[in-house]
């Protein structure tokens, strides 16, 4: 059973350590503590590897949940550090000084969710989308189907069948 190391528990206001699997836990923390906590985990607790940074849009609560996934190679354990930032004018402190590759993730989050990381290198350049002019497409209020119908013309005559009824009609017409 893993516990929160004492030096972390006494310095930061962290939520409970939630164990998802034997080799994966998550930890909730206040957004302003994240850079310091990550530095401590990296330097003193062996979480030297940054696996990824991602965001989930919790539109009902009006927040983005950012997850920084770290990995400790020595005891083969991953730790997800989670924090919440408000959806309106979402801004988060940049952590690119801790891991070089962080700025790529931050650039991606800026483009796909609209979370800003002031000071992160090239954060305002486009990442995978070029010339995007709508709201960031991974926000949940973005309606991808409506956007696609409005933007990309289709060939007429596309029709869809419900797979279950279609196969029933084909295979067991007498059952209908």
């Amino acid at each position, binding site marked *: 059973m893993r516990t929160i190391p004492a030096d972390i528990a006494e310095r930061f206001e962290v939520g409970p350590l939630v164990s998802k699997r034997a080799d994966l836990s998550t930890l909730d923390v206040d957004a302003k503590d994240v850079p310091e906590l990550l530095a401590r985990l990296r330097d003193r607790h062996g979480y030297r590897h940054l696996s990824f940074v991602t965001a989930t849009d919790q539109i009902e609560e009006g927040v983005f949940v950012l997850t920084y996934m770290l990995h400790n190679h020595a005891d083969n354990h991953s730790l997800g550090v989670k924090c919440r930032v408000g959806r309106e004018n979402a801004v988060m402190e940049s952590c690119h000084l801790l891991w070089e590759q962080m700025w790529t993730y931050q650039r991606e989050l800026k483009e796909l969710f609209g979370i800003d990381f002031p000071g992160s290198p090239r954060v305002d350049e*486009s990442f*995978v*989308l*070029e*010339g*995007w*002019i*709508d709201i960031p*497409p991974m926000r949940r209020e*973005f309606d*991808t*189907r409506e*956007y*696609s*119908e409005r*933007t*990309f*013309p*289709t*060939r007429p005559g*596309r029709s869809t069948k419900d797979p279950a009824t279609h196969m029933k009609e084909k295979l067991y017409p007498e059952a209908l």
Partner: protein
Amino acid sequence: MSDIKFTRALADPDHALKPAGRPGPLGKPLVLANDGLPEEEKAWFCDAYPTASGPYKGILENFLNWARSKSLWILGFGTGCGAIELRPLMTSRFDMYRFGIQPRPTPRQSSVFVIGGYASVKTLKRIVRSYEQMMGPKFVVALGSCTINGGMYWDSYNTINAIEHYIPVDVYIAGCMPRPEALLAGFKELQRKIRRGECEGAVKYAENFEWYKANQKKVIHDWNMPDYNY
């Protein structure tokens, strides 16, 4: 069509050096605005419209078409998942070389453009650029349902739904993804169409240039290349 601005060529001595564009209503050539380029780069690129050459008919053309159909050089540009199926097609099991099909590294050397599946807007920009750089006569084979009507990405915010709105297509190969056998059948069909003289995509592109260009510019918002990339 309203998205493109036309400017009339000014009667400047330099202009005589540039290739003649499509004649405008008053007999003067129309030139492309190249609005996406910075001012100092405009002189580096061609501003002429593509000119339709053909379609030609006759015995010589039949012979040339036969020769073209026997030597299809495809552009080594794989877009989307379908490009994976080109590998087995190249190698010994399906061996496309026996039909005179082989990949080439640059658009200038190739005559067939294989759209290997879904095209994101970012890729579409490169597709347009490469397509326009290919020499005529040029043929387009589009693989997979994604190129036909969007396939499983039909509601994606970032992939176009019908490739034929942006470049002319000669042969579609349906499937998700089409097997190498289907690809071979598609290439055989392309050869038949070429021999019948029906593959005039480059002519179609030049004749409907404004329509294609307007469609392209409607989805590619950061147009930072010449209007016609020859």
